[in-house]
């Protein structure tokens, strides 16, 4: 207990300390195995909020399906409104999970172990929320399968040159690989849960889901290979999904959409927003479930650095939009830049600059990066900022483009807002169901980390 914790030359603590192999398993599985009456108020509160807000979504969908997309605020120049903004916002949020699981895994960044499970789960939930918007925007969601190139007698074939179709493939691939990746990573832990739970029916479910895992060397060997391969498959998805989303805009000839920096700048924005969302949930969860020793301040520090870095790329993107808008010499491009900063929607543009460019600069400070409250507040700014970014791109570009005679203003209706807020309820509900039913930190990976740390101390 009292042995000294080994610090690295910078004086940093290890990512895990003061734990043994069994204490890690106990601590994490306790969250799911504790009697439901003992769950903290935070969980009840979150679940209640989620389930309440999600009713709004169901109601909005019901009205939409019965009355059509006319209930939204779309008009003639602004044919894409909240639906695409929310789609891009949610799909972006999912990217943190993929980055953490795939790229950081391949880079052998040990600190990813504690946060990967949670972030991957959020990826899935975010993709679910994102997927709803294009599904409902087609107007007749029961015919959405027409988007796929299946042999039919309708004489219909999707337009393969349209990035909207690329989106169908990109997002469905993303969802499939993310589910497989998440599930594969869960298998060893599901076996642990099978052993830990006392409820017969829960035991049966965990038993079925753990696919007969016994922890045999052969199982581990195959698991490691499968995980590595899936990480390899998921890596291009980090870049491809949001790049293709950006092409939805960039291949048009709309000023404000049509610019070549879009793919990398969208990817960076996705990672930026995704990390903000993971931290938004991680910070309260680690405090309430007493997991500050597993999800340490050092994790938060590293995540903030990723956020600062991706935020700076986003800021670079804004700078390029302004500079090349001017440098293009095109009066329409130049007008677009001015219209953002000085047009009728100027407040949303300046709010975006405040949220995404100015506030995140606080993260240069180590003190702020390790202060949970400050990080939490900054993350809220970023989440709002990233929504505003899509608002600025979609609405400000469309509402005034080439022909003055077809300019118009746009505003989301109450149904637009109901659907957007409703998806937040859906997201919350899914997150809190996940917290209750599955280990939110990968147990076996934390055990591996404990082993590594012990081993490191032995060798000195």
């Amino acid at each position: 207990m009292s042995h000294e914790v080994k610090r690295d030359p910078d004086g940093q603590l290890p990512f895990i300390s003061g734990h043994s192999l069994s204490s890690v398993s106990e601590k994490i599985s306790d969250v799911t195995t504790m009697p439901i009456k003992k769950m903290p108020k935070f969980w009840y509160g979150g679940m209640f909020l989620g389930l309440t807000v999600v009713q709004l979504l169901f109601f909005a969908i019901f009205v939409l399906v019965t009355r059509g997309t006319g209930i939204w605020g779309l008009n003639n120049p602004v044919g894409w409104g909240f639906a695409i903004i929310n789609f891009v916002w949610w799909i972006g949020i999912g990217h943190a999970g993929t980055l953490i699981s795939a790229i950081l895994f391949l880079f052998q960044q040990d600190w990813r172990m504690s946060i990967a499970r949670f972030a991957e789960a959020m990826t899935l939930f975010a993709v679910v929320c994102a997927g709803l918007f294009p599904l409902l925007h087609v107007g007749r969601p029961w015919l959405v399968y027409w988007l796929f190139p299946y042999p039919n007698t309708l004489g219909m074939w999707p337009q393969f040159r349209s990035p909207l179709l690329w989106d169908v493939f990109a997002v469905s691939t993303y969802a499939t690989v993310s589910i497989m990746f998440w599930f594969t990573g869960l298998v060893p832990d599901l076996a642990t849960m099978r052993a830990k739970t006392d409820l017969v029916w829960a035991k049966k479910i965990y038993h079925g889901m753990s696919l007969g895992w016994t922890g045999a060397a052969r199982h581990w060997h195959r698991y490691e290979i499968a995980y590595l391969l899936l990480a390899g498959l998921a890596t291009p998805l980090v870049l491809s999904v949001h790049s293709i989303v950006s092409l939805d805009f960039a291949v048009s000839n709309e000023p404000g959409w049509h610019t070549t920096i879009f793919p990398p700048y969208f990817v960076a924005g996705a990672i930026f927003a995704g990390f903000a969302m993971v931290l938004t949930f991680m910070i309260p969860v680690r405090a309430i479930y007493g997991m500050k020793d597993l999800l340490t301040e050092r994790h938060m520090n590293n995540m903030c650095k990723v956020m600062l870095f991706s935020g700076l790329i986003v800021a670079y993107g804004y700078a390029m939009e302004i500079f090349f808008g001017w440098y293009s010499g095109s009066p329409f491009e130049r007008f677009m830049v001015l219209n953002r900063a000085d047009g009728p929607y100027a407040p949303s543009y300046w709010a975006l600059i405040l949220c995404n460019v100015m506030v995140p600069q606080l993260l240069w400070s180590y003190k702020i990066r390790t202060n949970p409250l400050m990080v939490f507040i900054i993350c809220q700014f970023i989440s709002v900022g990233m929504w505003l970014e899509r608002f600025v791109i979609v609405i400000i570009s469309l509402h005034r483009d080439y022909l003055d005679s077809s300019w118009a203003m746009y505003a989301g209706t109450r149904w637009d807002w109901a659907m957007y807020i409703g998806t937040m309820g859906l997201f919350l509900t899914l997150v809190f169901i996940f917290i209750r039913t599955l280990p939110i930190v990968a147990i076996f990976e934390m055990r591996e980390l404990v082993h590594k740390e012990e081993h490191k101390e032995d060798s000195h």
Partner: protein
Amino acid sequence: MSTELPHLPTKLKEMQSLSLLIAGVGLSIMFLAWIFGVANFYQGYLVGWLLAMGFGAGGILILCIHHLAHGGWGFLLRRIAEASALTLLPIMLLYLPILFSLDRVYPWAIRDANGVSVYANDPVVGAKLHYLNHGFFWLRWIIITAIWSGAAMLFSKFSKLQDETGDMKWRRKMRFIAGPMALIYILTLTVGAVDWVMSLEPAWFSSIFGVMLAAGHMLSMLTFGIVFLTWLSKWEPVKTAFTAKRQHDLGKLLFAFVVFWTYIELSQFIIYWHPNLSEEITWYMNRQVGGFNGLSWFLFMAQFAIPFLVLISRSTKQNRKALFYVAFFLMGMRIIDLYWMIAPSINMPVPEARALYPAETKAMSGSAFHLLDIVGVVSFAALWFGLFLKNFRSRPILPVNDPYFSINAEIKDAEA
């Protein structure tokens, strides 16, 4: 076996003298061509200069990434990157011949008898003459030169002090400047990319262009690093320090940046190909005719498809010889990449593209390919390598006093 090896410091010194000799001869030829007003001087000189500048600035980029991410691979590259970054001041100064004859290279710089730009009444280029003019162009070059060479000196100074004292303070200082410098690097490089390359076709623009050049810089420094480390690994201490794992890491990094370069190029291509707007597609039209078309395909195959297929296999990345050859090949591809960027913009083989420009620009280019292109590239490559070796020789090869690096005890033994 190792008794056959020449003494490393002597070998490096010999190589340095030879490189500088080649550079001296080559640059003398180039300067004669400049003085005698040979039209083809500019293309060869610009490609050569961009190549050398890419190695230098790539050094800064690698140093920023290394200090921010501090992966094990970075320690091996640190000295190489520092020595390379230190070449930036002399290399940047060698842009002066072009600065003194801007109107021979950049169409926007051509002025009529009254000293007014020939584009003054052009609706597109005329609208950006507040930016593209002689005075401001010079000023931007001075600022970039000062920032880059200043950063190179700072990194090098702190690293030297850390090596001598082993004090963590210097390491922290390097980390402290690495973050802001990464930001400044990409901003200044974007400005440079617009000035030195994009403004060859002043009506054309692309907002991803700075990132494209940065990807090239990364490839330059990374391929050179792998080649040079492999060669150095015949001697200690690199022999011990360049472990199989570190080599594998560098291989992975190279693979990642080959893909990244392609990603950036492809993004620009799709975004311009799809809407097919006349003012934007000139870049590709000029690269789709005659020999340039073949060159475009060659670039795609040789800088993406083949290296991708070769590097994706773990056995290539772990095989020292194989990785050496791939890196060496990709280092050579930097020349093709830069020539592909420059030559079609200077020559404008497509009449529709050329029609966008005033008649005066027609006299600017010589032929698409000329012997001076080779002289320019060889002399700048030799000059950069000579200067690099001069800087490299003056320090221990590895930063052995870095507390993170010296954890590996066997390397310290080898150094002793």
